[in-house]
Structure formats: C-alpha cells, structure tokens
C-alpha cells in the first residue's frame, strides 16, 4: 500500500515545505486506492485515528501540479486550517483525471471527490482544465442517473497564489459531504 508519491499532510499544520514530488502517471489508481482506503483505516466504522467529528469521512482531491497543488502548499505554509478529511492526489494537469479515476475513488472508499486546477484560460497545458470540467460534469450526470448525489463530485479552479481559496474550497467540500448520507458500496468485483 506504499504510495510512491507522498501525499501532503494538509492537516498537520506543520507548514513544512514539501518538495515537488515526481509526476504521477501509471500509479494514479494505486494512489487513489491507498488514499481512499488506507490499510490502517478501514472504510467501514470510524477508525481510532480519525479526527473527532469526521467519522470515517474521506474526500479525495485531485490537484493539478501547476496551480492547485501549489495553492495547497501555500495553505500549508500559511498554517491555514484544513479539514482532516481531505486526501490529495497530485496530477500533472487536471486533464489527466479521467471519469474512471473519479468513480474509482468513490467506489474504493471516498465519500467525495473534487478536482482542482488552474483558472480558466490559464491551464499550463492549454485546455486540460476545460477537459476536466466537462469530465466532472459527465461524472455528476452519471451519478445522478444511478441515484448517487452529484454533489459528491466537484471541480474548482484557483491560481497558484490563491491559497485562501484552496482552504475555503476544501472546507466547503467537507461541509457538503458531511451533510450527505453514507455511500453504500457493493463488494469489489474482480476487474478484468
């Protein structure tokens, strides 16, 4: 379950500078699984390690390396308080995030997923954030069609310097997810 890329400890408030981790590529799914359902914290039942008042709630944030991740970094440096439920997965660009990544995160234990990228028109890969926006919209509609709350999935944009916005969106997402009922999951079926 060792994730090759260390996730930023957003909630420790230590504010230490986190070095730029290596680019996520083939290991996105592995990371999703380890963040959504770490071995030491089973999804079902509150774990002893969970922060008080959060139950076993877990939100996965896909952060683009250029903007949102830098904003998360800044939020850490500024010692802003962030919900302990947020788990981050860094991606080179939000355009890397496929509908399958988002739905997998929900299926493997996350209660909410959000994608955070650069401001519109400022994607460092030209249109990655626009693709991500449409994919998030698609996933929301898919979830709606099968009776799952579309609010579980969201997309935000922010500039690299806008760490207050990162903290605010993280809190807003946490509040949204806290109001929703638990997401029931069928047992894992073997993927082929």
């Amino acid at each position, binding site marked *: 379950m060792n994730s090759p890329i260390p996730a930023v400890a957003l909630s420790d408030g230590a504010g230490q500078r986190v070095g730029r981790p290596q680019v996520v590529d083939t290991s996105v799914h592995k990371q999703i699984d380890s963040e959504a359902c770490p071995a030491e914290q089973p999804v079902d039942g509150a774990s002893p390690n969970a922060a008080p008042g959060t139950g076993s709630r877990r939100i996965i944030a896909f952060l683009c390396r250029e903007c949102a991740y830098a904003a998360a970094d800044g939020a850490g440096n500024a010692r802003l308080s962030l919900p302990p439920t947020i788990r981050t997965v860094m991606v080179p660009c939000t355009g890397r995030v496929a509908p399958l990544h988002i739905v*997998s995160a929900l299926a493997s234990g996350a209660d909410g997923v959000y994608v955070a990228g650069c401001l519109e028109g400022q994607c460092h890969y030209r249109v990655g954030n626009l693709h991500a*926006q449409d994919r998030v919209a*698609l996933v929301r509609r*898919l979830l709606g*069609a*099968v*009776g799952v709350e579309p609010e579980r999935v969201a997309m935000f944009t922010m500039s690299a310097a806008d760490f207050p916005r990162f903290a605010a969106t993280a809190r807003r997402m946490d509040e949204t997810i806290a109001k929703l009922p638990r997401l029931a*999951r069928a047992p894992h*079926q073997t993927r*082929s």
Partner: protein
Amino acid sequence: MPLSARGMEIASMLDSDTSGVRPGVLGCEILRHDELCVSCGRCVSACPTGAMVEEGRFDPARLFSAPAGTELGALGAVLRRIARHPPSTTIEVPERVRAFRSVVFVAERCVGCGACVRACPTGAVEARPVNVARVELPGRSRRTARVGS
C-alpha cells in the same frame, strides 16, 4: 447536404421514384461494428453527405452492458458498486467528452463513397459491395458507376 454536380448526375440516373440519394449509390453498403468504435468522430468529419451524425446523448445503461476490458466496461464495473438503482435516464454528454459520444449512421443520406471507411482508425466501418447494376456514365467513356439494385 447537397451533392456535387457529378453526384447529381449519377443520382438522376436512378429510379425516378427515389428522392435523389439512397444507400449504395456508388456501389457500397456501409456496415458498422459498434464494438470497435471509439467515438473519435473522424467519420463524421469525413462524410461528404452528413450521413454520420454525432449523438450528444449517452445511455448510462451502456456502461453496464459494455464488455470488460473496454473503457466503458471498466467504468461500468466501478460505477455498479456505488449505484443505488439501475440507470434511469439518458444523459447529455458535455462538449469535450469524446469517448461517451456515439456516431449514428443515417442510411438515407449515404451515397456509399467509402470516405468513412478510409477515415476510420479502428476498422469499425466496413464497406461491402452491394448487388448492383451498371449504368453508363455520360462524358467519360469506359467508366461506369455501380448503382444500387
């Protein structure tokens, strides 16, 4: 979409009760293999008569019936785990999501030119010669068009 002058010429030689264009005018019948289609849309832009139309709605039930190993099948397998009920509605596909679009073939507009077959990268469109009669074409000696039976 209007036909070229030559296309009109050929179409005018068909039965008078046919309204201009019909499948296999140029001698091919277009067969599609949906399981190979990756919805890239190349046939849509290649088709000169607008017989290939991109469909902007998607039926989520397709995810659950798609074979495992495909992109849709993989997503379906995961979505099934969190679904509260079977898909109830079709959904509108956002503009930039290609893979969930499907291409609809409108046979009435097809002239059987085979442009889609050449454009298709996965071999999902196939042209099969139809049983045809030969018609002498004006202006070009020794060339014939095969006209659908």
